[in-house]
């Protein structure tokens, strides 16, 4: 053991320190997310099995070991039964899936050519365009939704422009419609679609496309047979980044949608803040989470493939 060039053998205290450091770096963020992200879902599920009561907090306890308790476990599926009985919830869930799905498709249709164009420009132009995609992502989401309220309103810019051009006689109803909700979602979520698409398109080796073109494939054939399948990871990541949060969207349907633009995020919010029925709101959230399990697993897989 007289190897002078090798590292000194660490002392026992140093090894102990290394282990402590490692446990600290892994343990602290793990513990935080476990406590404030994972455990809360369990509590939501627990409260979804409770009865609402007029008290503080407004729900019954799951376990009751009191002397005059009829049984120690107090769980009910009434909240879930109620969800299936009232049409409001069916319509909310269905509308949310429809609106989020169509908006995701629209984001993809507009975002794909944009990401493609950015990935294929010269490095300087590319950096500027990327910056332009990222910038709105940093500026206030709430205020960007608000900007459309001014544009789409009865006396808004769009109606003003259309009547100035003589295209319409009376102002169009655009604000407080489903159309405005689609527009708002595409507008606020499109950077989330463009960025992962750009990341896969930029890394893509162009040899395959060149080979296909050399062999006589038409441009659309090259696209459908090589570019599109190769960019699938980006399509999945981008679509999930849009679809999942859009499904539970609250701000956009509330500010831009009409009374009939029911989305589950808004229903949950009202159930909690207006009706103050915490157990029912928890049941709504639990069902929403179950709907989201598969999309979230798809998203996580796409994130792991990146590593």
């Amino acid at each position, binding site marked *: 053991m007289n190897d002078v060039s090798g590292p000194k053998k660490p002392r026992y205290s140093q090894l102990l320190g290394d282990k402590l450091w490692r446990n600290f770096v892994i343990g602290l963020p793990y513990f935080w997310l476990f406590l404030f992200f994972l455990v809360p879902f369990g509590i939501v599920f627990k409260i979804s099995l409770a009865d609402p009561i007029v008290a503080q907090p407004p729900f019954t306890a799951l376990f009751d070991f009191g002397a005059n308790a009829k049984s120690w476990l107090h769980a009910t599926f009434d909240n879930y039964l109620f969800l299936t009985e009232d049409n409001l919830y069916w319509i909310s869930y269905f509308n949310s899936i429809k609106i989020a799905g169509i908006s995701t498709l629209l984001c993809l249709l*507009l975002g794909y050519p944009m990401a493609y164009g950015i990935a294929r420009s010269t490095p300087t132009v590319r950096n500027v365009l990327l910056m*332009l995609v990222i*910038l709105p992502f*940093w*500026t206030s989401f709430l205020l960007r939704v608000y900007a459309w309220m001014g544009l789409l309103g009865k006396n*808004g*810019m769009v109606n003003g422009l259309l009547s100035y051009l003589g295209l319409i006689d009376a102002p169009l109803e655009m604000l407080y419609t489903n159309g405005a909700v689609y527009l708002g979602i595409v507008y606020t979520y499109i950077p989330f679609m463009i960025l992962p698409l750009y990341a896969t398109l930029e890394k893509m080796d162009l040899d395959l496309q060149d080979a296909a073109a050399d062999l006589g494939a038409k441009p659309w054939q090259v696209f459908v047979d090589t570019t599109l399948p190769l960019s699938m990871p980006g399509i999945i990541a981008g679509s999930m980044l849009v679809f999942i949060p859009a499904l539970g969207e609250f701000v956009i349907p509330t500010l831009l949608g009409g009374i009939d633009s029911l989305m589950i995020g808004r229903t*949950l919010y009202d159930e909690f803040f207006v009706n103050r029925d915490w157990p029912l709101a928890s049941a709504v*959230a639990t069902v929403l989470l179950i709907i989201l399990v598969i999309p979230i697993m798809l998203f*996580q897989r796409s994130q792991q493939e990146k590593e």
Partner: protein
Amino acid sequence: MNRSSRFVFSALCFGFAFLYLPILVLILFSFNDSSLATVWGGFSLRWYSALLNNEQIIDAALLSLKIAAVSATFATILGTMAGLALTQMGRYRGRLIFTGLIAAPLVMPEVITGLSLLLMFVSLQELIGWPVSRGASTITIAHITFSMAYVAVIVQSRLGSMDQSMEEAAMDLGGRPMQVAFDITLPLIAPSMLSGWLLAFTLSLDDLVIASFTSGAGASTLPMVIFSKIKLGVTPDINALATLIIGTVSIGILLASWVIFKQNKRHKEG
């Protein structure tokens, strides 16, 4: 230009016009003299002075800035640790769950995160008497939780693309992991940590839904005040406020990215 590149070019033009025109119109109308929010009545700064005299908005803005600064700092520390734990710590038990815990907050609908955190705080209060009341501190904990995931992703992607030979050399020379992390790794990823902090700061400043759930009586953040005003329609003083916020954030981001760009360039040249 052939047909397909002409199509891509027009998609880019349309897309960027779509992204930027609404914001530009909003900024323009913040200088509008008319109290009708959508009819042009000449240039004026009256909505800006009205804003400065609105105590409710000033108080809410100060509270939001405080929460954003504290939560961004803690989120950067925890998120950087999470980034290190995911890239440099090899295998350990529960790593798969950990990656899921980092990825899920990025996409989780805000109503779910908000509701679950509130119910968590209520249960904790019943169980151990803490938190005594809900307000700035519970909002801060909620913001740390979702923004640390964003910081972790930024730091993780930087660590993943980084050359690790410096760390390996330091370890070969007998450096202990903690020493190497502080002397080598952290200085190298400092720009990503700065981006992470800025992102966490703006995410916190912008959050409405999670803050509404986790706040108690009395503590109203800026988005909560804005939301209660714009629910009823467009108001010109919010246009002015929006211009101030969007202007400040844009200038901050452009400056930060310019600094990072310069540093990277010097790094490559040096």
